[in-house]
């Protein structure tokens, strides 16, 4: 939204809410009633530049369009939203009956799935950054890559500490994996060194060895060191000892082959051995190897010297733990974390938001982690999904916000609401609302009515969603909107189709009236393919039934089945299927039947018709209308005459004894 901050110097701010954005503009008007300038041209709410004067001098105002959740418009993030939706749904549906270990394994797998989606997205984003030629876009993509990378870092740590809840022993191994995967880019350095002709002479050689040691990658470190030994036979002795120490280092294992106590004991012995070698001065002649030995002993200063290699305090933390306290318990992490950060930053720099989030994680302050992430990240994706997962791990007590809903639901509602402002991602949002038990339905009802229905297919999708959730109000409302649109475009068949879907009798009546009006104006029916094929839908409304039957009358007449046609016509009036407004037309339709050579209407039927005519003319107190309108009067006269004639003929006919 640019520089809104500059707006507010001596000016007010006015705004208007739109469906997906807010229009904001500066104004010289204060609250209602005040004004500092007499010739202000009006509030700019339509997006145009408004000119106003301030003390006679012209000034112009700008209108800003403020849109939330810009991230949903980033192409490459859509994969993240779509795939994570699938994982989210899988998690909601997963069997809760699984208990203990298998449930935990299931949840860890879900967590890993989320992370792999983040990584896939990072890859795509990286590709996009590399292949684009627009520097602004490239900047944006690169920023996104770092944000995603940070998200994966945090998520991974949360997975280790909260979802998997790694215990002392495995905890360290997991943290080592975490550090190796995320912190500092070792691979390119390694490639350079190994690819050179004599690796041990490479200037980065000892850097690589050091970083291997710092990350507990003993085999790789030893492999490199052997190259140094072959190139420099003088140090063979030293090398053998160091190699041996590194080989023998006791590490926690994932399987239960040894208890923590056994490990601690072994480790103590090993530590003392290293100590002895150091104090004997074995490595005195080679400062690099000596430094490695100090690291093995967990010497903080020695480790801190390699600050540039480790790059972050949490790498420092894990290295410290590896070499001074490998059997660290989860609850002890907080102390080591705090001191590691203090030592590493050393008062030179202050912690960044990422550092604070990770610290909160080490301190097992889940709510703090979520809160900090919410503040720092630009959309709700991360916190919504992470909180949902943690909730499934039964780790979050209901953290009551002022309106009483719990945190998981609050975050999911915010995330899903954001999705709804997108023209196609809204479908994902529906499922999220479904899994918010308290307010989900209400939010869905409000949002779904505001989706722009640009095509019928989209409207059908929205309708299906509403029907599946018994949202009858919304079904009616949407069908009415679509039916009105169709009606305005003269698509009467479509309009009827929408009324049938909503079982909207009132609208069906409206459509029928439209047909009848067209008929009266043009003298023939339009859209016969529809009226002739109404089927059971004819019963939806009386007017529609009348329309169908009236058309049938015309068909019968066309097929010269006069007796049936006559009977039908009469029924339409006597059974009150026809609206009163149409009776005149019906009676006029009876005229040709009355004038046929053959007598069609029986005496009784003729009496009925006469009664109808009298009801029609007498029933209208405003006789002026009839009397002034010549055509109407003529019609009535003609009808009376025809009816009388018919009556005469039929009385004679019925009175005559046949064949005698």
């Amino acid at each position, binding site marked *: 939204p640019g520089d809104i901050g500059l707006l507010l110097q001596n000016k007010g701010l006015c705004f208007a809410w739109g469906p997906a954005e807010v229009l904001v503009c500066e104004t010289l008007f204060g609250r209602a009633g005040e004004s500092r300038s007499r010739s202000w041209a009006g509030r700019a709410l339509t997006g145009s530049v408004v000119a106003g004067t301030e003390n006679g001098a012209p000034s112009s105002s700008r209108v800003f369009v403020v849109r939330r959740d810009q991230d949903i418009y980033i*192409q490459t993030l*859509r*994969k993240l939203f*779509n*795939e994570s*939706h*699938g994982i989210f*749904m*899988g998690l909601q549906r997963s069997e809760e009956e699984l208990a203990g270990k298998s449930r935990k394994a299931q949840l860890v797998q879900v967590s890993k799935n989320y992370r792999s989606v983040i990584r896939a997205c990072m890859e795509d984003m990286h590709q996009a950054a590399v292949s684009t030629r627009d520097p602004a876009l490239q900047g944006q993509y690169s920023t996104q890559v770092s944000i995603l990378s940070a998200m994966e870092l945090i998520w991974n740590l949360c997975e280790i500490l909260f979802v998997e809840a790694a215990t002392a022993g495995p905890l360290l191994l997991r943290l080592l994996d975490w550090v190796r995967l995320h912190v500092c880019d070792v691979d390119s350095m390694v490639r350079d060194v190994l690819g050179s002709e004599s690796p041990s002479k490479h200037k980065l050689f000892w850097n690589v060895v050091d970083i291997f040691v710092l990350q507990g990658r003993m085999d790789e470190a030893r492999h490199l060191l052997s190259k140094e030994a072959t190139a420099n036979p003088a140090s063979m002795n030293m090398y053998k000892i160091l190699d041996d120490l590194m080989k023998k280092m006791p590490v926690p294992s994932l399987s239960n082959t040894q208890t923590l106590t056994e490990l601690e004991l072994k480790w103590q012995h090993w530590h003392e051995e290293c100590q002895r070698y150091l104090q004997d001065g074995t490595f005195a002649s080679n400062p690099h190897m000596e430094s490695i030995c100090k690291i093995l002993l967990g010497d903080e200063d020695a480790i801190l010297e390699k600050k540039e290699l480790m790059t972050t305090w949490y790498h420092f933390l894990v290295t410290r733990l590896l070499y001074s306290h490998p059997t660290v318990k989860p609850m002890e992490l907080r102390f080591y974390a705090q001191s590691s950060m203090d030592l590493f930053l050393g008062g030179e720099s202050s912690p960044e938001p990422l550092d604070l989030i990770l610290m909160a994680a080490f301190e097992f302050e889940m709510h703090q982690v979520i809160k900090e992430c919410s503040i720092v990240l630009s959309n709700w994706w991360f916190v919504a999904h992470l909180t949902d997962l943690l909730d499934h791990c039964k780790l979050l007590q209901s953290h009551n916000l002022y309106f009483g809903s719990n945190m998981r639901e609050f975050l999911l509602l915010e995330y899903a609401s954001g999705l709804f402002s997108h023209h*196609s991602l809204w*479908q*994902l949002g529906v*499922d999220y609302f479904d899994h918010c038990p308290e307010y989900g339905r209400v939010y869905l009802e409000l949002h779904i009515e505001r989706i722009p229905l*640009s*095509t*019928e*297919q*989209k409207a*059908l*999708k929205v309708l*299906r969603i509403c029907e599946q959730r018994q949202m009858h109000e919304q079904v009616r409302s949407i069908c009415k909107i679509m039916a009105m649109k169709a009606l*305005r*475009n*003269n*698509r*009467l*068949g*479509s309009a*009827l*189709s929408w009324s*049938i879907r909503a079982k909207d009798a009132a609208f069906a009546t409206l459509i029928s009236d439209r047909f009848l009006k067209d008929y009266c104006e043009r003298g023939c029916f*339009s*859209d016969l*393919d*529809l009226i002739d*094929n*109404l*089927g*059971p*839908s004819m019963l939806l409304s009386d007017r529609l039934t009348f329309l169908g039957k009236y058309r049938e009358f015309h068909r019968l007449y066309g097929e010269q089945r006069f007796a049936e046609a006559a009977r039908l016509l009469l029924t339409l009036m006597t059974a009150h299927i026809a609206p009163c407004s149409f009776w005149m037309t019906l009676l006029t339709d009876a005229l040709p039947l009355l004038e046929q050579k053959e007598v069609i209407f029986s005496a009784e039927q003729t009496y009925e018709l006469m009664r109808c005519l009298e009801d029609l003319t007498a029933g209208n107190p405003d006789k002026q209308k009839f009397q002034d309108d010549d055509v109407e009067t003529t019609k009535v006269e003609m009808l009376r005459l025809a009816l009388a004639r018919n009556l005469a003929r039929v009385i004679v006919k019925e009175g005559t004894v046949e064949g005698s």
Partner: protein
Amino acid sequence: KCGIVSVQDNRISIWSAGDLGNTGLNGEYHGEPRLLCDIQHNGDVMDMQFLDQERIVVASSTGTVTIFRHHQNNQTLSANHRWDKAHYHVDQDTSCGGAACTGVVCNNPEIVTVGEDGRINLFRADQKDAVRTIDNADSSTLHAVTFLRTTEILTVNSIGQLKIWDLRHQRNEPSQIFSLAGDRVPLHCVDRHPNQQHIVATGGQDGMLSIWDIRQGTMPVSLLNAHEAEMWEVHFHPSDPDHLFTCSEDGSLWHWDTSTNVSEKPSFLHQGGRSTAYLSHSTINQSVVSAWLSNDPTKDRMEITNLIPNQTLSVNSLDVLGPCLVYGTDAEAIYVNRQLFA
């Protein structure tokens, strides 16, 4: 080589699904579909079809019909020809008055389109203007169109009618109208049996699959209850028409199999998936009467399989060729199944 055309954020994209020869020892497919090229498209893509090896006709929600050409030498897409406002409403309120073009079918060089305006257009690929337009062909929305014969087309609409139009005649009336017996449930898709041209399948808004014999009667031969929501597309397998595929808003894609070898095995040995159901159909004279039209429930069985294990969002579109099945979902994903009959 399988080419898939997809739509993402209103772009037309061409993907390579890889060579058919690129399979491992057990026949597993290696590699994912690769994006070859794409191009911006104005409006939602409602339907599309290959006109020939290089050209694709696309129907847009703005009412425009566009021919895109795929240049295989440098892997680019370009808009070759466009018919703007092929479909439109006469509404003073909307600024553009465009009506969505809902269906397109090609028989090179002829292209037929239908839309929400109830209009049928006949285009030729090399001609600027429409060869023929039937205004107000239908009072409701036309949802799909397909060729019955080279001079006849089939359309389905939103009041449950199947209509045959003879393009040789100049009258703007259908030559035949078929409709469902009961409620006028809108029909969304239609396909004709590749070999036996009197057999037509349609899919409705209630997920029902109807099989029609257009030589006789005005009502369907069979009604098969399938999906729980709109059936968006129905396709007979072009070379193996005992197989039919349908996809739906409910997120499932069904494979309907009436091939006889199914009936040889006793039912408890059938290798159905978790969601396999059996329907009885007879095959008295299998060679003469298609299994689709039989109505003696005693003899043979039809096997129906849901090809999607974890369904979530709607499957909007599918296509099938040889052993390859492609489908796209509302989760913005395209799936390729290259061993349909394995």
